[in-house]
């Protein structure tokens, strides 16, 4: 098991993840993620999809892994990375079900996802984590190393291997259909608009 609950009620999640790990996570759970995660956003996903469609190997093995939707700002000399918060996940919706089918277990981003992603999370036992959008400076503190592993020419959009330690996130969508946005917002909604 690479999911355990800390004394503070926050779940410690260590990559790679198994189906049992993902099944134990519920929408609204606060988590600390440690281990290796990979960054990829629009342009990198655009290059991965044709490879998947042709059945060719990907530059990273996504089995059991987590993809973080982010394009970091450049590191100052002596720093591991610059600011590194999440980007809007729905732009990657087109690509996510195919990656989940290959064994990807988690994604980290912000914002709503479409119904096909929700269904793929259920079908392939995946989880969608949220990191706080716009908190890129704070989040950079949890990144211990960053190495470009593919598509260096894409600059900030290259695929990076990040080693993270206690990276704070929350479960937005779980593999059981749970949705933190729906649950959280209905408590405070006082008007339909």
């Amino acid at each position: 098991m690479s999911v355990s609950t800390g004394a503070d009620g926050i779940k410690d999640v260590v990559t790679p993840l198994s189906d049992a790990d993902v099944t134990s996570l519920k929408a609204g759970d606060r988590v600390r993620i440690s281990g290796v995660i990979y960054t990829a956003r629009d342009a990198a996903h655009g290059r991965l999809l044709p490879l998947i469609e042709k059945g060719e190997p990907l530059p990273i093995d996504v089995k059991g892994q987590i993809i973080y939707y982010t394009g970091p700002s450049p590191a100052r000399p002596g720093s591991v990375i610059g600011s590194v918060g999440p980007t809007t996940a729905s732009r990657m919706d087109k690509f996510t079900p195919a990656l989940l089918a290959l064994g990807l277990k988690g994604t980290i981003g912000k914002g709503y996802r479409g119904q096909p992603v929700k269904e793929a999370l259920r079908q392939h036992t995946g989880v969608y984590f949220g990191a706080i959008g716009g908190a890129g400076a704070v989040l950079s503190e949890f990144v211990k190393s960053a190495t470009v592993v593919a598509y260096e020419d894409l600059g900030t959009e290259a695929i990076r291997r990040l080693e993270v330690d206690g990276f704070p996130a929350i479960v937005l969508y779980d593999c059981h259909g749970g949705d933190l946005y729906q649950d959280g917002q209905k408590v405070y909604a006082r008007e339909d608009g």
Partner: protein
Amino acid sequence: MREVHVSAIADAVKKLCMDANWSLEPDMLRAFDRALGTERSAAGKQVLTILKQNAEMARTRRIPYCQDTGMVICFVELGQDVHVTGGALYDAINEGVRHGYQEGYLRASIVRSPFDRVNTGDNTPAVIHVDVVPGATLKIMLMAKGGGCENRSKYTMLTPAAGLPGVKDFVVECVKTAGPDACPPLILGVGVGGTFEKAAILSKKALFRELGSPNPDSTLDALERELLARANRLGIGPQGYGGDTTSFGIHILSYPCHITSLPVAVTIECHAHRHKEVTL
């Protein structure tokens, strides 16, 4: 004629780019504090607390508040008694952006064409709006505008019959559809009237007013307050995790329009509201 050399403009823009990305303006910091006093949601409070820490860390370590360091938007008020010397005004602004982003370790987020999508590598060019005004000064109002929230900005052409209720419903609908994608708490710039493009430009310009300050037009001020209250009853909350603070402020600018038209543009701005200005 007062002469302003392009190097002074480039230097000023460079500094504005770096400062805007590292240090949120006091109006934003006050907005976090006000919201922490009223937010009922524990998750929402936690988000606001982390965002305040984020602002402090960005300022002290001189790293960007958000990794999306934005597209630079400049509203320039060029006094008609100013003579820009040594080169072109637009080139000087872009030179400042280039140096600010490269030397400030800010992200290059601009592609040279919407079709081939090759990154320009230095965050140029900026989007520049110039107004010629009386006087002998040159004022630059600069914003580093994030893409995630910009993507949720909207425009509609209402009929005059749709009237004020139509405008109100559209603005609230924009907050709803922006949801967590645009990184709430949001700030809305609303442009009403003019033409298709005038409304859009007004919606951007409206964002430069100090957050929390009243609209100088009392009718618009009342409308802003009403819309803000409605937006904050939606329950979206900080980051969309649920709560009372969905928007920090709604700023409206209006302009005369054609008898057939009621244009409404809404620019959605995230809590990384990075705006600075300088007068040369």
